[in-house]
């Protein structure tokens, strides 16, 4: 009697489910290294990402250069207050030095406090006079950091003024200044001047009599007396403005192309497992040339993709291109990176499964740390320093230089050479250490 297929319900159905599940588990453990990676990769990724993108206590203080033209006591107090804030590292410098530090990327921004700042930081400025313009010099790519810094500066200014108003001396000084101001104001009538003089005297008496002080500011107070005015600086182009489309087109393209490389590595390992690679070798092809030739095919696909992506970015989203040859050099070197990375991954991964786990892990780490996805300023300093050893950092910075930064072509070539160097090293290691048979 021949066995008939089990019905899809009841115990027989459960057995089917059980056997299929068992088969899948057996397949899972059949590649022990792949199985270990399955568990290890999410743990590593979680540990790495949480240590890099950690909560506030992991965020490094933001570097701020402060240049005061005429540093009076109130300006010095403000600088000291900023210095005492754990979220900021204050570097005192001359205006020229401050500018240079922002140019070189050592500082996110520079605060240039003019001579009027001393007057603006006195309590009277809350009630009278125009806000004093204060230049905030920044690198366009670090606008998010400057948002935070501006908030911190404004908070410190207001707290400093509040603190001064909370003292008897401060209030006495304020009322005296109100008396002086109104007495000399040409727009006021004699009667009004008399009323203001009486108000000033009463205020001074009250401030002197009330030793405790309420610490509240007078009603009708205005905003910060410092008017922070941003001025973007760029190494190459003073008119350069950070462009979100340019930034994210570069970042996402870099990551997508690395995923393309992972697919190419997977295909290569499958060709090895299916025997097609052995046949290639039996044709007499040089092993390294055969691998490099395959990688060149992938590079071509990557180049076409990269050009199409940036062409659409320029046409549809107005991504500015500073140097066309520079951008082409970057896209070319990025394509070479895809070829080199695919060979490296194929040589490191022993099986298709290992590559399918390892590839996304490496790409996500390189993409995040290289600034493809999130701003690098929220990372610890050591990560930012180490990221110079990642090709994604070079790719993203190079694409920024060629697009919105408007860097000269030669500078773009320098970034492209960096990416190309990574490609060559990856490709060389990959091609020389690739195993032709399992």
């Amino acid at each position: 009697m021949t066995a008939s297929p089990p019905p899809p319900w009841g115990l027989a159905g459960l057995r089917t489910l059980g056997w299929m599940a068992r088969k899948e588990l057996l397949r899972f453990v059949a590649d022990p290294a792949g199985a270990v990676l399955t568990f290890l990769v999410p743990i590593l990724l979680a540990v790495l990402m949480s240590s890099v993108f950690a909560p506030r206590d992991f965020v490094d203080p933001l570097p701020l250069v402060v240049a005061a033209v005429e540093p009076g006591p109130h300006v010095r107090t403000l600088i000291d207050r900023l210095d005492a804030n754990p979220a900021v590292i204050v570097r005192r410098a001359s205006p020229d030095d401050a500018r240079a530090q922002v140019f070189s990327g050592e500082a996110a921004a520079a605060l240039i406090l003019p001579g009027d700042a001393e007057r603006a930081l006195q309590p009277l400025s809350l009630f009278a006079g125009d806000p004093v313009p204060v230049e905030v010099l920044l690198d366009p790519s670090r606008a998010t950091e400057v948002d935070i810094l501006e908030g911190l500066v404004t908070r410190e200014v207001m707290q400093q003024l509040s603190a001064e108003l909370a003292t008897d001396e401060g209030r006495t000084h304020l009322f005296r200044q109100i008396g002086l101001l109104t007495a000399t104001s040409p727009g006021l009538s004699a009667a009004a001047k008399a009323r203001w003089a009486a108000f000033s005297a009463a205020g001074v008496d009250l401030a002197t009599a009330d030793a405790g002080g309420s610490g509240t500011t007078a009603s009708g107070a205005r905003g910060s007396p410092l008017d922070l005015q941003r001025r973007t600086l760029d190494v190459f182009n003073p008119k350069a403005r950070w462009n979100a489309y340019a930034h994210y087109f570069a970042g996402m393209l870099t990551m997508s192309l690395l995923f393309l490389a992972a697919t190419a590595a997977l295909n290569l390992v499958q060709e090895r497992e299916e025997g097609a690679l052995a046949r290639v070798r039996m044709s007499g092809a040089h092993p390294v040339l055969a691998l490099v030739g395959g990688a060149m095919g992938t590079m071509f696909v990557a180049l076409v993709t990269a050009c199409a992506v940036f062409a659409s970015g320029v046409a549809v989203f107005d991504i500015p291109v500073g140097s066309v040859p520079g951008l082409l050099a970057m896209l070319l070197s990025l394509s070479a990176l895809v070829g080199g990375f695919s060979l490296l991954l194929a040589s490191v991964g022993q099986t298709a499964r290992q590559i399918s786990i390892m590839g996304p892990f490496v790409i996500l780490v390189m993409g995040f740390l290289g600034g493809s996805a999130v701003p690098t300023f929220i990372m610890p300093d050591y990560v930012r320093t180490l990221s110079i050893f990642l090709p994604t950092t070079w790719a993203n910075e190079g694409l920024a230089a060629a697009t919105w930064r408007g860097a000269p072509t030669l500078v773009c070539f320098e970034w492209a050479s960096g990416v190309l160097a990574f490609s060559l090293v990856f490709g060389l290691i990959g091609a020389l250490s690739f195993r032709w048979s399992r």
Partner: protein
Amino acid sequence: MIEIEGLVARYGRAVAVDGLSLHIPEGSFFGLLGPNGAGKTTAISCLAGLHPPSSGRIRVGGFDPVRQRREVLDVLGVVPQTIALYGRLSVVENLRVFGGLHGLHGKRLSERVEWGLELSQLTAHRTKRVEALSGGMQRRLNLAVGLLHEPRVAVCDEPTAGVDPQSRNHIFATLRELHQQGLTVVYTTHYLEEVEALCDRIAIVDRGHVVRSGPLAELLQGRGTKRIELLHPTDRARVVEALEAAGIEVGETRGRTLEDLMLELTGSALRE
């Protein structure tokens, strides 16, 4: 055409080929037999220069596969055991890619591609993806790709595994025809009747070395025993009875096959 002397090949500590010696004359149809793990595929890999021998000497058409790999691969065409093709490429694309890798180009490449399509009887399927072909079609293409560069020796490693009788016959006919045109064929298979039907010389390999080799007819003669061929097999019982009555010991009462010989030489124990 192929000379192998004292070939030893290892995978790490495991010895796959252990002192193999073979002489395969030019123009022969040579059967290489042996159970799984006997070392046949490793020996082929050594011939093609894919696996470096630990010791021993190999010459293919007078060339050393290690030092003169390019020359050896011009002489040698290998038809691997697996369907070593690019599944997502079409039939004609596979032929063009592998032909190109063998150094064919231009008009010559086009001619050889057409020859390959004709040989594999896949002209009508030239634009089909290989992965969409039947097993028999893939095997035929596998054979054509191995012979595309007009080698003088074809090493066919189980070229008919898993194919239908029609494709098998087609592969036999193709190899016979090419052999008649002067191609030396080295043929490995587990289907022993194929060897009996095709090969004029054989070598039986076990545990990495040759346990018997020579012309097929001689080997099937046996060793010092007499073979009686019955014209009328239905008389077998009476003949045996008569022989035994005459004091002659009768060992076997059926015709000896190559399978008998191989099992006698290599044993019937299952191999890894």
